[in-house]
């Protein structure tokens, strides 16, 4: 079984990277020790996404960080990413696994059932949330809360990352509920100092 070497999973969103370009933000995060990046840029045409992914691949390789591409297995294969991240509405982990035995597979899940399915389908790790209220995940309904996170972490044998409104202060209960790590967008992307924020995460997670 794959034991991820990262405890913090940075998810991108160019629209939330308002203080600096997304590429600058990713580069700074990796420089500050972030070890896994999921490129999740909705609405970008394939060519632009490929070019951005290629650029981010260069950065992540330079800092020995893992790169996951949201949804697009073709783009992940084309740029030599480490893995694919499957949203619930995208290709299922099992379908991705049939396309490539080498890609790591992360999967976003919003229910216990989806988490069990993704794990059975060959996902290497899961995201579960939103644990707390967060503007970017409002469409997934009310927050799941710590108790459901705990149920999911207890039900699957692969690592589960808590996602959704998680700040360094709120991370402790997630870890106590069984989360392997934390995933987030705005915490790092919108930080005034990415370095300082990364240090906070490192402290609370016991490593990045």
């Amino acid at each position, binding site marked *: 079984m794959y034991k991820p070497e990262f405890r913090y999973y940075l998810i991108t969103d160019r629209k939330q990277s308002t203080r600096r370009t997304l590429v600058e933000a990713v580069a700074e995060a990796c420089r500050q020790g972030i070890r896994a990046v999921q490129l999740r840029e909705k609405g970008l045409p*394939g*060519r632009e996404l490929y070019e951005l992914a290629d650029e981010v691949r260069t950065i992540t390789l330079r800092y020995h960080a893992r790169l996951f591409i949201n949804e*697009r297995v*073709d783009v992940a294969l*084309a740029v030599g990413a480490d893995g694919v991240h499957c949203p619930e509405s995208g*290709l299922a982990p099992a*379908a991705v696994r049939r*396309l490539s035995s080498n890609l790591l597979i992360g999967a976003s899940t919003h229910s216990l059932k989806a988490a069990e399915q993704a794990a059975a389908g060959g996902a290497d790790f899961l995201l579960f949330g939103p644990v707390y209220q967060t503007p970017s995940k409002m469409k997934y309904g009310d927050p799941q809360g710590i108790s459901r996170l705990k149920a999911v972490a207890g039900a699957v044998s692969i690592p589960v990352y808590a996602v959704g409104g998680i700040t360094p202060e709120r991370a402790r209960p997630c870890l106590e509920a069984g989360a392997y790590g934390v995933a987030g967008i705005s915490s790092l992307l919108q930080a005034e100092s990415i370095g300082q924020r990364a240090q906070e995460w490192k402290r609370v997670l016991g490593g990045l």
Partner: protein
Amino acid sequence: MTKKLRGVYLITDTRIQQRFSHKELTRQAVQAGVRMVQFRDKDAPAAEALNHVRGMAEETAGSDTILIVNDRPDLVLAGGADGVHLGRDDLPIPVARRLLGGMIIGGTSSAVEEAVQVEREGADYVALGHIFETRTKHKPYVPRGLDILKQVRQAVSVPVVAIGGITLLNAPQVIEAGADMIAVSSAICKADDPEKAARLLVDLFR
């Protein structure tokens, strides 16, 4: 490619009509002898798109009809299709080639220079459009017409697919102007009897 790419190219559409699914339209197209069928739905979530592609692949399996997926080489591979069609904003053709090997890759063009470039990038066919006014897909430029089709036919050696506003009435001129294939959506999908409409278009190539 085993046989020359020539004939009718159907882009199934379930927005301009809701009577038939992608799979049902594909079945009728296969029956009628349509040469290529393309799945295109940029808004469908990938899981849903994959189900459509798989359903269509069941219909084209064992037939001479080639199944193409718009924009997504990964859906081609996961869904059991035969190739991909790439617009100018989609993955670069050489990148798709690395993923798909000898499968079919088509590229979009709207001018002679673009068609030449698409061929140079390694496309197996070049689509040119839109030839006539079309309402299926919004286009920010004027129809390309038959003259440019003739020029593109002269300028490239791969098959040329004419697309945009083609009907049973104007299709003969398009073929006359040198199109190896005519791509249609409304002309078949919106017909009272799609299979019959497809057959009439297929017969133009006999």
